[in-house]
Protein backbone atom coordinates (compact mmCIF):
# COMPACT_ATOMS: atom_id res chain seq x y z
CA UNK A 1 0.00 0.00 0.00
CA UNK A 2 1.26 3.49 -0.87
CA UNK A 3 1.99 6.13 1.77
CA UNK A 4 -1.10 8.06 0.63
CA UNK A 5 -3.18 4.93 1.06
CA UNK A 6 -1.80 4.40 4.59
CA UNK A 7 -2.61 8.02 5.46
CA UNK A 8 -6.18 7.57 4.30
CA UNK A 9 -6.55 4.39 6.38
CA UNK A 10 -5.09 6.20 9.40
CA UNK A 11 -7.67 8.95 8.83
CA UNK A 12 -10.41 6.35 8.72
CA UNK A 13 -9.28 4.97 12.09
CA UNK A 14 -10.14 8.36 13.58
CA UNK A 15 -13.56 8.51 11.97
CA UNK A 16 -14.62 4.88 12.10
CA UNK A 17 -16.91 5.35 15.10
CA UNK A 18 -18.66 8.34 13.57
CA UNK A 19 -19.00 6.26 10.39
CA UNK A 20 -20.56 3.40 12.37
CA UNK A 21 -22.88 5.86 14.18
CA UNK A 22 -23.88 7.43 10.86
CA UNK A 23 -22.78 10.75 12.33
CA UNK A 24 -20.82 11.96 9.29
CA UNK A 25 -22.05 14.22 6.53
CA UNK A 26 -23.55 12.44 3.51
CA UNK A 27 -20.55 13.31 1.34
CA UNK A 28 -18.03 12.13 3.93
CA UNK A 29 -19.90 8.91 4.51
CA UNK A 30 -20.06 8.22 0.80
CA UNK A 31 -16.34 8.95 0.53
CA UNK A 32 -15.57 6.34 3.18
CA UNK A 33 -18.07 3.86 1.74
CA UNK A 34 -16.19 3.95 -1.58
CA UNK A 35 -12.82 3.70 0.17
CA UNK A 36 -13.89 0.70 2.25
CA UNK A 37 -15.18 -1.06 -0.84
CA UNK A 38 -11.67 -1.00 -2.27
CA UNK A 39 -9.59 -1.24 0.95
CA UNK A 40 -9.28 -4.59 2.72
CA UNK A 41 -7.51 -2.99 5.73
CA UNK A 42 -10.36 -0.61 6.51
CA UNK A 43 -13.00 -3.21 5.74
CA UNK A 44 -11.42 -5.66 8.19
CA UNK A 45 -10.99 -2.85 10.73
CA UNK A 46 -14.76 -2.38 10.75
CA UNK A 47 -15.43 -6.07 11.24
CA UNK A 48 -12.73 -6.28 13.96
CA UNK A 49 -14.26 -3.38 15.88
CA UNK A 50 -17.75 -4.80 15.54
CA UNK A 51 -16.53 -8.22 16.70
CA UNK A 52 -14.83 -6.75 19.77
CA UNK A 53 -17.91 -4.72 20.67
CA UNK A 54 -20.37 -7.60 20.11
CA UNK A 55 -18.26 -10.14 21.98
CA UNK A 56 -17.67 -7.76 24.86
CA UNK A 57 -21.36 -6.91 25.06
CA UNK A 58 -22.25 -10.61 25.29
CA UNK A 59 -19.56 -11.57 27.76
CA UNK A 60 -20.03 -8.60 30.05
CA UNK A 61 -23.79 -8.93 30.30
CA UNK A 62 -24.96 -9.72 33.80
CA UNK A 63 -28.39 -9.62 35.36
CA UNK A 64 -30.21 -9.18 38.62
CA UNK A 65 -32.51 -11.83 40.00
CA UNK A 66 -36.15 -11.09 39.16
CA UNK A 67 -37.08 -10.82 42.83
CA UNK A 68 -34.26 -8.34 43.44
CA UNK A 69 -35.25 -6.29 40.41
CA UNK A 70 -38.90 -6.19 41.53
CA UNK A 71 -37.86 -5.12 45.03
CA UNK A 72 -35.65 -2.32 43.69
CA UNK A 73 -38.40 -1.05 41.39
CA UNK A 74 -40.93 -1.18 44.23
CA UNK A 75 -38.56 0.78 46.44
CA UNK A 76 -37.84 3.35 43.72
CA UNK A 77 -41.47 4.28 43.18
CA UNK A 78 -42.24 4.70 46.87
CA UNK A 79 -42.90 8.22 48.09
CA UNK A 80 -39.99 10.09 49.67
CA UNK A 81 -39.60 8.87 53.21
CA UNK A 82 -36.28 10.22 54.28
CA UNK A 83 -36.77 13.94 53.77
CA UNK A 84 -34.34 15.03 56.49
CA UNK A 85 -31.74 12.45 55.45
CA UNK A 86 -32.25 13.54 51.83
CA UNK A 87 -31.56 17.11 52.83
CA UNK A 88 -28.54 16.29 55.01
CA UNK A 89 -26.98 13.67 52.72
CA UNK A 90 -28.06 14.42 49.15
CA UNK A 91 -25.24 12.18 47.87
CA UNK A 92 -25.82 9.39 50.37
CA UNK A 93 -27.00 5.97 49.32
CA UNK A 94 -30.47 4.71 50.13
CA UNK A 95 -28.98 2.45 52.81
CA UNK A 96 -27.21 5.37 54.47
CA UNK A 97 -30.37 7.50 54.37
CA UNK A 98 -32.40 4.63 55.74
CA UNK A 99 -29.91 4.03 58.58
CA UNK A 100 -29.83 7.73 59.44
CA UNK A 101 -33.62 8.02 59.39
CA UNK A 102 -33.91 4.95 61.60
CA UNK A 103 -31.46 6.39 64.15
CA UNK A 104 -33.28 9.72 64.06
CA UNK A 105 -36.61 7.98 64.64
CA UNK A 106 -35.20 6.00 67.61
CA UNK A 107 -33.73 9.17 69.16
CA UNK A 108 -37.06 10.95 68.66
CA UNK A 109 -39.02 8.16 70.34
CA UNK A 110 -36.57 8.05 73.28
CA UNK A 111 -36.80 11.83 73.71
CA UNK A 112 -40.61 11.68 73.68
CA UNK A 113 -40.58 8.92 76.31
CA UNK A 114 -38.20 10.98 78.49
CA UNK A 115 -40.50 14.03 78.29
CA UNK A 116 -43.57 11.94 79.20
CA UNK A 117 -41.78 10.34 82.18
CA UNK A 118 -40.56 13.74 83.37
CA UNK A 119 -44.07 15.23 83.20
CA UNK A 120 -45.82 12.33 84.91
CA UNK A 121 -43.43 11.56 87.82
CA UNK A 122 -43.37 15.11 89.41
CA UNK A 123 -39.67 14.88 90.26
CA UNK A 124 -37.98 18.04 91.64
CA UNK A 125 -36.15 20.07 89.08
CA UNK A 126 -32.48 19.36 89.77
CA UNK A 127 -31.14 22.58 88.27
CA UNK A 128 -33.60 24.75 90.15
CA UNK A 129 -32.83 22.96 93.46
CA UNK A 130 -29.10 23.46 93.12
CA UNK A 131 -29.53 27.16 92.23
CA UNK A 132 -31.73 27.75 95.27
CA UNK A 133 -29.24 26.02 97.52
CA UNK A 134 -26.42 28.22 96.27
CA UNK A 135 -28.44 31.42 96.71
CA UNK A 136 -29.50 30.32 100.18
CA UNK A 137 -25.88 29.78 101.13
CA UNK A 138 -24.94 33.32 99.91
CA UNK A 139 -27.82 34.81 101.99
CA UNK A 140 -26.68 33.08 105.15
CA UNK A 141 -23.14 34.35 104.63
CA UNK A 142 -24.31 37.99 104.38
CA UNK A 143 -26.60 37.63 107.43
CA UNK A 144 -23.68 36.37 109.49
CA UNK A 145 -21.59 39.41 108.44
CA UNK A 146 -24.44 41.78 109.41
CA UNK A 147 -24.65 40.22 112.86
CA UNK A 148 -20.92 40.64 113.34
CA UNK A 149 -21.18 44.33 112.39
CA UNK A 150 -24.12 44.89 114.79
CA UNK A 151 -22.04 43.52 117.62
CA UNK A 152 -19.13 45.78 116.69
CA UNK A 153 -21.45 48.87 116.58
CA UNK A 154 -22.73 48.10 120.04
CA UNK A 155 -19.19 47.88 121.35
CA UNK A 156 -18.14 51.14 119.66
CA UNK A 157 -21.30 52.92 120.84
CA UNK A 158 -20.34 52.20 124.38
CA UNK A 159 -17.02 54.00 123.75
CA UNK A 160 -18.77 57.04 122.11
CA UNK A 161 -17.03 56.79 118.77
CA UNK A 162 -19.78 58.60 116.90
CA UNK A 163 -18.19 59.02 113.53
CA UNK A 164 -17.14 55.41 113.37
CA UNK A 165 -20.61 54.37 114.38
CA UNK A 166 -22.27 56.37 111.57
CA UNK A 167 -19.90 54.86 109.02
CA UNK A 168 -20.37 51.36 110.27
CA UNK A 169 -24.09 51.89 110.46
CA UNK A 170 -24.11 52.94 106.82
CA UNK A 171 -22.09 49.86 105.84
CA UNK A 172 -24.51 47.66 107.67
CA UNK A 173 -27.49 49.19 105.87
CA UNK A 174 -25.77 48.64 102.56
CA UNK A 175 -25.12 45.03 103.40
CA UNK A 176 -28.72 44.57 104.46
CA UNK A 177 -29.91 45.94 101.13
CA UNK A 178 -27.56 43.58 99.35
CA UNK A 179 -28.70 40.63 101.39
CA UNK A 180 -32.32 41.20 100.29
CA UNK A 181 -31.34 39.99 96.85
CA UNK A 182 -30.33 36.60 98.23
CA UNK A 183 -32.73 36.02 101.03
CA UNK A 184 -35.96 34.93 99.59
CA UNK A 185 -36.94 32.20 101.95
Amino acid at each position, binding site marked *: MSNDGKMICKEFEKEIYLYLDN*DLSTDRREYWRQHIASCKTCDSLISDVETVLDQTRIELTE*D*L*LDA*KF*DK*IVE*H*AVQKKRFKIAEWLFPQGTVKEKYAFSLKLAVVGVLAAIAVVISLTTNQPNTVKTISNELLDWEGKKVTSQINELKNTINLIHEDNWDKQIIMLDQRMKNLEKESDKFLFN
Partner: protein
Amino acid sequence: MSATHEQTLIEKCRNGETAAFGPLIKNYRKQLFSYLLRLSGNREDAEDLFQETLIKGWRGINKYSELQKFSSWLFTIAHNTAMDKLRKRNKETMITETDPDELRHTSDPHKELIGKEIRIKIQKAVDILPFKQKEVFLLRVNSGMSFKEIALTTKEPLNTVLSHMHYSVKKIKRLLWSENE
Protein backbone atom coordinates in the same frame (compact mmCIF):
# COMPACT_ATOMS: atom_id res chain seq x y z
CA MET B 1 -40.31 -2.80 23.06
CA SER B 2 -41.62 -0.44 20.43
CA ALA B 3 -41.03 3.29 20.70
CA THR B 4 -44.78 3.87 21.00
CA HIS B 5 -45.14 1.37 23.82
CA GLU B 6 -42.17 2.94 25.61
CA GLN B 7 -43.70 6.40 25.21
CA THR B 8 -47.00 5.13 26.64
CA LEU B 9 -45.17 3.74 29.68
CA ILE B 10 -43.29 7.02 30.14
CA GLU B 11 -46.58 8.93 30.07
CA LYS B 12 -48.07 6.55 32.64
CA CYS B 13 -45.07 7.07 34.90
CA ARG B 14 -45.44 10.84 34.54
CA ASN B 15 -49.02 10.44 35.71
CA GLY B 16 -47.79 8.62 38.78
CA GLU B 17 -48.71 5.07 37.70
CA THR B 18 -46.08 3.15 39.63
CA ALA B 19 -46.93 -0.14 37.90
CA ALA B 20 -45.59 1.23 34.60
CA PHE B 21 -42.07 1.86 35.87
CA GLY B 22 -40.97 -1.80 36.10
CA PRO B 23 -41.90 -2.65 32.49
CA LEU B 24 -40.28 0.59 31.31
CA ILE B 25 -36.96 -0.25 32.98
CA LYS B 26 -37.05 -4.00 32.31
CA ASN B 27 -35.91 -3.47 28.74
CA TYR B 28 -32.65 -1.89 29.89
CA ARG B 29 -32.11 -3.68 33.15
CA LYS B 30 -29.40 -6.12 31.98
CA GLN B 31 -27.35 -3.50 30.16
CA LEU B 32 -27.76 -1.00 32.96
CA PHE B 33 -26.81 -3.47 35.65
CA SER B 34 -23.88 -4.82 33.61
CA TYR B 35 -22.58 -1.30 33.14
CA LEU B 36 -22.78 -0.49 36.85
CA LEU B 37 -21.34 -3.84 37.84
CA ARG B 38 -18.31 -3.45 35.57
CA LEU B 39 -17.77 0.13 36.67
CA SER B 40 -18.14 -0.47 40.41
CA GLY B 41 -16.40 -3.86 40.51
CA ASN B 42 -18.78 -5.68 42.85
CA ARG B 43 -22.43 -6.75 42.96
CA GLU B 44 -23.32 -5.02 46.19
CA ASP B 45 -22.22 -1.60 44.96
CA ALA B 46 -23.78 -2.26 41.56
CA GLU B 47 -27.13 -3.09 43.18
CA ASP B 48 -26.96 0.08 45.29
CA LEU B 49 -26.13 2.15 42.22
CA PHE B 50 -28.89 0.45 40.25
CA GLN B 51 -31.36 1.32 42.99
CA GLU B 52 -30.14 4.93 43.19
CA THR B 53 -30.46 5.25 39.42
CA LEU B 54 -34.03 3.98 39.47
CA ILE B 55 -35.01 6.28 42.33
CA LYS B 56 -33.59 9.28 40.47
CA GLY B 57 -35.19 8.07 37.25
CA TRP B 58 -38.63 7.78 38.83
CA ARG B 59 -38.39 11.13 40.60
CA GLY B 60 -37.04 12.86 37.52
CA ILE B 61 -39.31 11.31 34.90
CA ASN B 62 -41.12 14.61 34.41
CA LYS B 63 -37.83 16.24 33.48
CA TYR B 64 -37.14 13.69 30.74
CA SER B 65 -37.36 15.19 27.28
CA GLU B 66 -38.28 13.15 24.21
CA LEU B 67 -35.49 14.94 22.31
CA GLN B 68 -33.21 12.35 23.92
CA LYS B 69 -33.53 8.56 23.79
CA PHE B 70 -34.91 7.21 27.05
CA SER B 71 -32.02 4.74 27.31
CA SER B 72 -29.49 7.57 26.96
CA TRP B 73 -31.26 9.57 29.64
CA LEU B 74 -31.30 6.57 31.97
CA PHE B 75 -27.63 5.75 31.36
CA THR B 76 -26.68 9.38 31.95
CA ILE B 77 -28.33 9.18 35.37
CA ALA B 78 -26.56 5.88 36.05
CA HIS B 79 -23.24 7.31 34.92
CA ASN B 80 -23.53 10.41 37.11
CA THR B 81 -24.66 8.35 40.09
CA ALA B 82 -21.72 5.98 39.68
CA MET B 83 -19.24 8.83 39.24
CA ASP B 84 -20.50 10.54 42.40
CA LYS B 85 -20.09 7.37 44.37
CA LEU B 86 -16.68 6.57 42.91
CA ARG B 87 -15.45 10.07 43.59
CA LYS B 88 -16.78 9.83 47.11
CA ARG B 89 -14.99 6.61 47.78
CA ASN B 90 -11.97 7.49 45.71
CA LYS B 91 -12.30 4.16 44.00
CA GLU B 92 -10.76 4.85 40.64
CA THR B 93 -7.85 2.62 41.52
CA MET B 94 -10.11 0.02 43.12
CA ILE B 95 -11.69 -0.97 39.82
CA THR B 96 -9.08 -3.41 38.78
CA GLU B 97 -9.21 -7.09 38.19
CA THR B 98 -12.27 -8.80 39.54
CA ASP B 99 -12.95 -12.49 39.71
CA PRO B 100 -15.66 -13.14 37.10
CA ASP B 101 -17.23 -15.79 39.35
CA GLU B 102 -17.65 -13.17 42.01
CA LEU B 103 -19.61 -10.94 39.65
CA ARG B 104 -21.70 -13.66 38.09
CA HIS B 105 -24.67 -14.61 40.18
CA THR B 106 -26.33 -17.36 38.23
CA SER B 107 -25.18 -19.05 35.09
CA ASP B 108 -25.69 -22.04 32.88
CA PRO B 109 -22.95 -24.59 33.87
CA HIS B 110 -22.45 -25.75 30.28
CA LYS B 111 -22.13 -22.23 28.97
CA GLU B 112 -19.95 -21.47 31.95
CA LEU B 113 -17.39 -24.10 30.97
CA ILE B 114 -17.24 -23.08 27.34
CA GLY B 115 -17.33 -19.36 27.82
CA LYS B 116 -15.35 -18.96 31.00
CA GLU B 117 -11.94 -18.59 29.43
CA ILE B 118 -12.97 -15.99 26.86
CA ARG B 119 -15.06 -14.16 29.42
CA ILE B 120 -12.15 -13.94 31.83
CA LYS B 121 -9.97 -12.54 29.06
CA ILE B 122 -12.52 -9.92 28.09
CA GLN B 123 -13.23 -8.89 31.64
CA LYS B 124 -9.54 -8.71 32.41
CA ALA B 125 -8.95 -6.65 29.28
CA VAL B 126 -11.70 -4.21 30.23
CA ASP B 127 -10.69 -4.05 33.89
CA ILE B 128 -7.11 -3.03 33.14
CA LEU B 129 -8.14 -0.16 30.86
CA PRO B 130 -7.39 3.34 32.17
CA PHE B 131 -10.53 4.68 33.83
CA LYS B 132 -11.49 7.24 31.17
CA GLN B 133 -11.13 4.67 28.40
CA LYS B 134 -13.15 2.14 30.36
CA GLU B 135 -15.86 4.72 31.06
CA VAL B 136 -16.31 5.49 27.35
CA PHE B 137 -15.99 1.86 26.27
CA LEU B 138 -18.58 0.57 28.76
CA LEU B 139 -21.02 3.36 27.97
CA ARG B 140 -20.79 2.48 24.29
CA VAL B 141 -21.05 -1.27 24.80
CA ASN B 142 -23.80 -1.26 27.40
CA SER B 143 -25.93 1.75 26.56
CA GLY B 144 -25.51 1.85 22.81
CA MET B 145 -25.26 5.64 23.08
CA SER B 146 -23.80 7.46 20.10
CA PHE B 147 -20.38 8.98 20.65
CA LYS B 148 -21.88 12.46 20.57
CA GLU B 149 -24.18 11.43 23.43
CA ILE B 150 -21.26 9.87 25.30
CA ALA B 151 -19.34 13.13 24.90
CA LEU B 152 -22.26 15.00 26.46
CA THR B 153 -22.62 12.50 29.28
CA THR B 154 -18.93 12.38 30.17
CA LYS B 155 -18.51 16.13 29.51
CA GLU B 156 -15.50 15.38 27.30
CA PRO B 157 -14.83 16.74 23.79
CA LEU B 158 -15.99 14.39 21.04
CA ASN B 159 -12.43 13.88 19.74
CA THR B 160 -11.26 12.87 23.21
CA VAL B 161 -14.10 10.37 23.50
CA LEU B 162 -13.29 8.93 20.06
CA SER B 163 -9.66 8.69 21.04
CA HIS B 164 -10.52 6.85 24.29
CA MET B 165 -12.66 4.43 22.30
CA HIS B 166 -9.98 3.90 19.69
CA TYR B 167 -7.34 3.02 22.27
CA SER B 168 -9.64 0.86 24.40
CA VAL B 169 -10.74 -1.25 21.41
CA LYS B 170 -7.14 -1.51 20.24
CA LYS B 171 -5.97 -2.72 23.66
CA ILE B 172 -8.79 -5.21 24.09
CA LYS B 173 -8.29 -6.55 20.58
CA ARG B 174 -4.56 -6.91 21.11
CA LEU B 175 -4.99 -8.63 24.46
CA LEU B 176 -7.65 -11.00 23.21
CA TRP B 177 -6.14 -11.97 19.92
CA SER B 178 -2.52 -12.09 20.95
CA GLU B 179 -3.44 -14.48 23.76
CA ASN B 180 -5.58 -16.58 21.44
CA GLU B 181 -2.71 -17.14 19.06
